């Protein structure tokens, strides 16, 4: 049986995400994929899904969703009070959903991105091997009121009462681990010291493409030829701001790449709120 999730309230920018679209940069196609890959993987792991099953991602303002058929879902990512038919349910656990049930959330007070995983994944269109929403690639850029999201209904719910270790969920770090970027050596000694020694603040200029940090570093580096970039690449813009590229970033960029975030720290930054403080800790490749 195919079920529908009906979008009663879409939230701020709710999308379908998976691992992303890797292997198509030669056409200029961004990787995209879940902003917090760890929470995305966790949702699928808790449901016993294959690792690339698509999930719903919401940001800051959660959606309100109604299920037309039975399902098993799992909520990961942002810490938030969630309810099925106004009865409180647990995060990071399998949740049984019956025909007509409504999933709603309270206000999101902690972290930024939340995920709704479902047994066997959501069934939106696959474009270039991924269901991740992306403007110009998928038909939709984000969900609107009354949109329908397809899934295969699932009725064999068995509660194993399994829970995961708190240490897996604890990501309240303020230190992000970085490797030196290809243009790091072009910085002056004082710029290098500032970069690796001072505290930075997450600004409100943020999207799925990039997160800008508030502080200013003087930038007198000469312009460079457009070169490849990846999610986690930290660029120094002409105005002296640090711009951390995120999942929806372009495949190439023209600003000096001064640092590169460790893979797992991209997820941590994605979940940091505007105003959060952070420092960079330099890692050497082993």
């Amino acid at each position, binding site marked *: 049986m195919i079920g529908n999730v009906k979008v009663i309230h879409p939230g701020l920018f709710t999308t379908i995400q998976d691992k992303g679209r890797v292997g198509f*940069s030669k056409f*200029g196609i961004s990787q995209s994929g879940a902003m917090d890959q760890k929470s995305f993987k966790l949702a699928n792991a808790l449901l016993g899904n294959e690792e690339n099953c698509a999930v719903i991602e919401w940001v800051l303002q959660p959606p309100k969703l109604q299920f037309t058929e039975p399902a098993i879902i799992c909520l990961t990512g942002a810490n938030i009070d969630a309810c099925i038919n106004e009865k409180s349910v647990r995060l990071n656990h399998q949740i049984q959903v019956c025909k007509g049930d409504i999933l709603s959330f309270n206000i999101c007070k902690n972290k930024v991105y939340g995920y709704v995983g479902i047994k066997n994944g959501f069934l939106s269109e696959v474009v*270039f091997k991924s269901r991740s929403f992306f403007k110009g690639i998928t038909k939709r850029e984000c969900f609107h009121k009354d949109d329908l999201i397809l899934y295969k209904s699932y009725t064999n719910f068995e509660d194993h009462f399994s829970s995961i270790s708190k240490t897996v969920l604890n990501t309240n770090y303020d230190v992000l681990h970085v490797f030196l970027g*290809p243009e790091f050596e072009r910085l002056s000694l004082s710029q290098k010291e500032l970069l690796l020694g001072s505290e930075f603040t997450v600004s409100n200029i943020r999207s799925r493409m990039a997160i800008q940090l508030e502080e200013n570093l003087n930038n007198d580096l000469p312009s460079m030829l457009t070169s*490849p970039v990846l999610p986690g690449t930290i660029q120094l813009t002409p105005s002296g701001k640090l711009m951390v590229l995120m999942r929806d970033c*372009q*495949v190439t960029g023209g600003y000096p790449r001064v640092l590169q975030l*460790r*893979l797992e720290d991209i997820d941590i930054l994605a979940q940091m709120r505007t105003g959060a403080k952070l420092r960079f800790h330099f890692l050497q490749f082993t």
Partner: protein
Amino acid sequence: MRYDLQYKRYAENAILIEWPSEIDEILLQDLLFYKKSIEKYCDEVILEVISSYNSLLILYVSTIEDFYGEVFMLKSLYVTNNSKENKNKLWRLPVCYDKKFAPDLEDFAMSKSLSVEDVIVLHTSPIYTVYFIGFLPGFLYLGGLNDKLILPRKSTPARMVKRGSVALGGNQTGVYPMDSPGGWHVIGNCPLSFFDIKSAVPCFVSPGDKIQFISIEEKEYNEISTSVSKGFFLPDSIAI
């Protein structure tokens, strides 16, 4: 010609290979030939190789355990391109430079002390080289712009540049494959589709290909536009 290449660790799962910092066609051929060898011999362990003017970024499936061993292996794949084989094409792209499609053409010509006709002639004369695709799906990075058409980008980017817009920015020229914000000066519009999500090869142009812009009238623009939307317009190309 062999270049002195730099191999840098970029991320846990990525290695960057850099050529000297220049926009050069011989360099491009060398880079694309090396890219092909890497894709052929490392198929199992890599996700993809991202290319630009003077670098390749190799993205691996998993963390690279032995960077020096991997670089040693990559270096053994770097051989001089002796093949005379050239599968590149020259694409002739129709562009309508009519006022209607060129919101910035008059201002652009004025800032360069040129007539509108001069700008069109200078833009349609060169044969441009496609270096890589980036910025947007299907956006071609071209080399070969006439020095007389170099003008810094707009200080405030336009919130909306129309799909097909042919534009100039700095020492570059290109076509916007889809509606997008953008800071380049729009001087015309090309009715072709540079990005088709329904096709296995979504962009008909490849790095190494050549491009020439052909000035067309509005009537022809509309005809081509109609054919493109019906899906039966094939751009003109010549093997080179």
